[in-house]
């Protein structure tokens, strides 16, 4: 499936919860088709930033623009046609099949009183196939593994046919193999479907694997933004996570690994 990517921009965005500002004056933009990876320590407000961009939380100040247009006042439906969202833990606790869950991604394409059409089912099947989980389609969602769940939620976001994909720590709590599979899937989705992708992670290395640019949040502000090789340095990681880390090139600098200094001494 080929989708139309959109440019996403935040302007001087301040966000948080009632009585508690989490982030201030965040301005960045992601070009159509670009993958931006957000880093930041626990509680830095990555999820809060994403939820504000998605319109699930009202912004304190500032604006979110999609292709230059303000998203303020957009209906849930319009937002869902723009943003595909993969939450950290999603899917609810009811034993829907994976196919039924992915089909829910089509909600915004249907009126409030209608059920999915054949075209919707086709779009959902295609999204499931794109994620390579066709063999799971009839399995119960609550019975598949964590990695498979993440792929199913990704498929649901794809079935939504959004223009921007927002993934909140898609590799959190996955085993190593599933982390690789999910990251590969994200990268291939960005490339083949032509989607703008905004994701967060706790593993700086993953940015080298899947992102065009990296944004680092620290102290509620945007510390750095730029290509992974420029942003992910020992200095940035020290400021961000308060640990000494060596960033070492491997395989002719096609990839870099982040190794804590304490492991090396």
């Amino acid at each position: 499936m080929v989708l139309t990517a959109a440019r996403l921009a935040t302007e001087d965005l301040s966000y948080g919860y009632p009585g508690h500002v989490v982030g201030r004056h965040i301005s960045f933009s992601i070009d159509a088709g670009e993958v931006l990876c957000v880093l930041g320590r626990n509680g830095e407000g990555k999820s809060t930033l994403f939820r504000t961009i998605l319109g699930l939380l009202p912004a304190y100040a500032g604006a979110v623009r999609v292709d230059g247009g303000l998203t303020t006042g957009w209906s849930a439906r319009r937002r869902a046609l723009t943003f595909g969202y993969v939450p950290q833990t999603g899917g609810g606790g009811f034993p829907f099949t994976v196919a039924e869950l992915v089909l829910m991604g089509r909600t915004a394409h249907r009126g409030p009183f209608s059920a999915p059409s054949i075209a919707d089912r086709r779009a959902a099947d295609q999204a499931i196939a794109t994620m390579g989980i066709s063999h799971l389609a009839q399995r119960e969602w609550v019975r598949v593994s964590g990695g498979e769940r993440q792929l199913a939620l990704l498929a649901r976001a794809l079935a939504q046919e959004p223009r921007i994909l927002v993934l909140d720590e898609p590799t959190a709590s996955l085993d190593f193999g599933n982390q690789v599979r999910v990251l590969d899937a994200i990268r291939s989705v960005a490339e083949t479907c032509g989607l703008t992708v905004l994701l967060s992670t706790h593993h700086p290395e993953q940015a080298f694997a899947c992102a065009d640019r990296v944004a680092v949040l620290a102290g509620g502000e945007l510390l750095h933004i730029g290509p992974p090789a420029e942003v992910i340095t020992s200095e940035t990681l020290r400021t961000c996570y308060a640990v000494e880390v060596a960033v070492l090139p491997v395989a002719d600098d096609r990839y870099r690994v982040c190794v804590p200094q304490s492991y090396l001494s």
Partner: protein
Amino acid sequence: MAKVTGAASPLSGPAEAVILQIRVPRILAATAVGAALAASGAAYQSLFRNPLVSPDILGVSAGAAFGAVVGIFLSLPVLAIEVASFAGGLAAVIIVYTIATAIRGRDAVLVLVLAGVVIGALFGAGVGLLKYLADPYNQLPAITFWLLGSLAAANLRDLTSLLPAVAIGLVLLALLRWRIDVMTLGDEEATALGVSTRSLRIVVIAAATLMTSAAVAVSGIIGWVGLVVPHLARLLIGPAFTKLLPVSVLFGAGYLLAVDTVARTLGSVELPLGVLTAALGTPLFLWLLAFSRRPAWS
């Protein structure tokens, strides 16, 4: 049949009167009440993302009962009793839901169920007060028998208010079947998928409460149907509301019709329907809880 076709009736006058004015209304009332309670239960379970909630547990039945008892106490006409019952049921579910959303940071479902129990108890106390104040020769027996749950007094006039309310509720739920599934994901995820969760929740609660209250106004409190029947349907056909709603409606209607027939014929004296559904529902539910291999949720 003869009445419809216009042919001469093979039945004697009294037999025809018994069938048309007592049996048929009672059968229709039993199916409608069973369908209404089961469908409301199924809707509440999906909406509150918990297959253990039911109109009873969320205090809707108690609220509706309180409203109806106020109506009986004030000797209001049947339609006014029904309106009072609806208002009581709606008030209960709004109070319970407001409490559950206000108390954050704990197990949301536990708070919801506990709030339902507490508010149900409060409305129960209100019913107790009215029983205490009621005229012990006319109103008190009426209230007491009515609270036990019975369809013995169901007549054609009851049906004219019960059937439209149930039909409206069922049609609304059927129209929103797809969105109700999306609501089981939780508010935030449903919003991100394009659902206006606030308005949808209001419509679904209103539809389910309308049906429950209309049923309570006619039959009194008939517990367990709204919990056990949709739960059983979930185990059999899964959580998708498109299938869950019709299966719950059929099971609910059939179950209550069967139980009512037993209540009517088992002993020389008619047993209260609510007592019988509780006696059957409790072991059935415990059995489902203990031995179901396929969990209805996780």
